[in-house]
């Protein structure tokens, strides 16, 4: 008897059908994986299950009864969603966060002992039983905070847990912890819907996988009957020959050189990137990948050391100076730092790069529109019109707009900080295709990613970072995944300079 069954659910927004007669069910004591490209309808399905959207047709049954129609009632009925972004209150304590909106009280006074006991019980189920309940939650790591969020659901007697991309902001070493908590909860009899882009996690933890494509349910089988190629095929409806179309390139003289760079999170770092080269930065979260890129891009303050571009020293700590030297930093969090989500695609493309679309400070509206149309078509952005809000595009398409905007500046050095974060496999290869084209035109490209295998697949050469230092350097010919991961995890320093 399934605890949740989705029965013929369809959702239309205007003329667009996002979900089309989706039918599936999941059971207590099982982990059901849900995969699909961006835009396949996963988020809408989650919103419907959470009570935040009402289906246009069909219905959802939770524990034999109709799913309530408001988010609060859905939670009370025992279904909780853990979203990609944390929803805790950073300044409150662990105790207050775990019992958020749910403190026991008598006569208006909170029952301290009772509350502590309940919070402790919830936290021990996710392996955090040892933490001090008085710790402000902002002092915990991201993965601890995420587990605390799960504990919050458990305290509310959740029977169904939906995890939406739970590992997207976790460092690699914490993924296993989360997966083992997921297994424990499953064994305790909770029904879990696990939504992810990371197929390897599914083979680790899921009992069954369902696949959405263009709003239709196109696959629903026990995990034993799937393998990675068949999953990808089902998601994309075609074989993914080569996810990252790497090809050899001519590498020229050094474009970017840093000497003894010291900044927050960066210690005495000397690296270089050459014309036409794609250089990867490999490192765990906190290794200084992002910090190094920000220091080079003029975004972060540099304590000492120097940055040179094409043989000339660049003033550090100034985005304007970096820009005029041809260095562009593309931030990790495109929604928070890359785009104005409410503004049009056209406006986002023009932002900060007015030379091609203005004359003496006056904008040329026609040129802006034409240029936006050219760039979006050249970079395969799927959209209705360049006047539409960029926030309405899928993550992959938003990223393509950013890649297009940056590429058209013909920069000497581009620093891509996790360019495929939250982007599905199909769009990833499209994005790297353009990154390679950019390198072929002579830019030096630096890339980092939370997915080490992705960096190894696209880079000509990688630096391994640990605790703010470069602890290894490998050329593509001598990539050794095990050794690189060992170094990144803090193993002894070995360097194999490029042959």
């Amino acid at each position, binding site marked *: 008897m399934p605890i949740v069954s989705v029965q013929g659910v369809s959702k239309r927004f205007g003329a667009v059908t996002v979900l089309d007669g989706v039918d599936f069910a999941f059971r207590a004591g099982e982990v059901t994986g849900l995969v699909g490209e961006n835009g396949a309808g996963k988020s809408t399905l989650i919103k419907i299950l959470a009570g935040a959207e009402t289906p246009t047709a069909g219905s959802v049954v939770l524990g034999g009864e109709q799913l309530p129609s408001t988010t609060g009632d859905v939670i009370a009925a025992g279904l909780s969603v853990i979203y990609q972004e944390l929803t805790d209150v950073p300044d409150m304590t662990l105790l207050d966060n775990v019992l958020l909106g749910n403190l026991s009280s008598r006569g208006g006074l909170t029952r301290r002992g009772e509350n502590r006991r309940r919070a402790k019980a919830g936290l021990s189920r996710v392996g955090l039983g040892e933490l001090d309940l008085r710790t402000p939650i902002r002092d915990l790591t991201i993965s601890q905070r995420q587990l605390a969020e799960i504990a919050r659901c458990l305290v509310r007697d959740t029977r169904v847990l939906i995890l939406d991309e739970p590992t997207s902001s976790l460092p690699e070493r914490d993924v296993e912890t989360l997966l083992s908590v997921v297994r424990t909860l499953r064994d305790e009899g909770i029904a879990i819907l696990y939504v992810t882009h990371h197929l390897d996690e599914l083979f680790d933890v899921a009992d069954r996988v369902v696949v959405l494509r263009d709003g239709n349910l196109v696959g629903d089988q026990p995990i034993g009957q799937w393998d990675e190629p068949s999953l990808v095929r089902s998601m994309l409806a075609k074989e993914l020959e080569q996810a990252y*179309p790497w090809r050899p390139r001519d590498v020229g003289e050094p474009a970017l050189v840093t000497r003894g760079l010291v900044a927050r999170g960066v210690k005495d770092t000397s690296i270089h990137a050459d014309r036409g080269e794609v250089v990867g930065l490999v490192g765990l979260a906190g290794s200084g990948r992002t910090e190094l890129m920000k220091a080079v891009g003029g975004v972060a303050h540099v304590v000492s050391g120097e940055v040179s571009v094409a043989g000339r020293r660049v003033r550090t700590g100034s985005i304007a100076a970096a820009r005029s030297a041809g260095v562009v930093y593309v931030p990790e969090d495109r929604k928070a730092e890359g785009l104005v989500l409410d503004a049009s695609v056209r406006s986002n493309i023009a932002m900060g790069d007015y030379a091609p679309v203005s004359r003496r400070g006056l904008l040329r509206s026609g040129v802006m529109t034409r240029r936006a149309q050219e760039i979006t078509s050249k970079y395969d952005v799927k959209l209705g019109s360049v006047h539409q809000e960029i926030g309405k595009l899928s993550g992959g398409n938003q990223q393509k707009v950013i890649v297009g905007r940056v590429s058209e500046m013909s920069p000497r050095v581009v620093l891509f900080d996790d360019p495929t974060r939250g982007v599905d496999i199909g769009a990833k290869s499209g994005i790297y295709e353009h990154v390679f084209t950019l390198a072929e035109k002579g830019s030096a490209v630096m890339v980092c990613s939370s997915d080490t295998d992705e960096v190894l697949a696209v880079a000509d050469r990688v630096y391994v970072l640990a605790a703010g230092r470069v602890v290894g350097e490998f050329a593509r010919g001598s990539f050794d995944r095990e050794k690189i991961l060992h170094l990144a995890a803090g193993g002894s320093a070995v360097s194999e300079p490029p042959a």
Partner: protein
Amino acid sequence: MSRTSHPQPTPQPQERPVSTATQSSPWRHQVERALSSNIAPIVAALIIVSVALSFMSDVFLTSSNLTNIVTQSAVVGIAAVGATFVIITSGIDLSVGATMALAGFLGAQLAHHSDSGWLGLLAVMGVAVLVGAFNGFSVAWLGLAPFIVTLAVMGMARGLTLQFSQGESVYDLPSTLNWLGSADLAGLKVSAIVTVLLFLVGHLLLSRTTFGHRVYAVGGNADAARLAGINVKGVIFSTYVIAAVCAGVAAIVLVGRLDSATPNAATGTELQVIAAVVIGGTSLFGGKGSMIGTLVGVLLIGVINNGLTLLNVSSFWVQFVQGALIFLAVLLDSFNTGRLKRAATS
């Protein structure tokens, strides 16, 4: 919702049906945008209120009354041009009224004693720019909250005005100083002409220049704007200086109209200014808004004020109505930006 592409061996600009949609006439697009924008309901409100008033009062539709509305709206309108820039960056300037009083008083006093209208004009603008620079510096470089900074400056400016004036007004001003606020040109009030011109300049600056685009970008997402190479602090600073320059011009109009400068001049004007801007569809959350919207907002407030006077409604009610208008505008803003929906469902 769009589908993401399948991996392709090489990027090829392809013929796609969607691209034809993007090439449809820009006019049609502008009309569509105007209809779907925040301005449509406020234009409708202006028309409805005007039609209603023309039935309720015989005087309302006379040309002298309509001219009167525009002239009466000049002070708030000019200040609202500047406030639009500030509010689009998601800032706020509560010091506009106090700045007008301080700059207007000091300029008038200097003009009165030196008997030089030009010196007075220069002093008004100089004082206003200083106040604006102080606001802008505090918000942009010291990172202080605009609401608090400008509230503090409002207090300081009012205090300085009272101290310098000892509560006394200045009369007998040179005609050069009064010209902007009182003179007629080709049958129209100079102040009305200047208001219209400033709206036009503000509109062009916002919609047609790279500076205007930067203002929207900073308000839409300051982090993204900074990383896109925009000098965010410079942009924020400029908007407060623009707001103060407009307040200076408004002060000159006010002084000229009354042929005097009083220390309590323009009390509460900042609320009317903010109301006009927000009613006109500029979002307090930043990133959205237009000068045309502000113009309609100013006119709506002017028409309502005028109507209440024509209908002999007590001035206490006038204040209530203005407060209620601000509330409605903020509610509309919240509704438009979707926050209401999110707040209601969470």
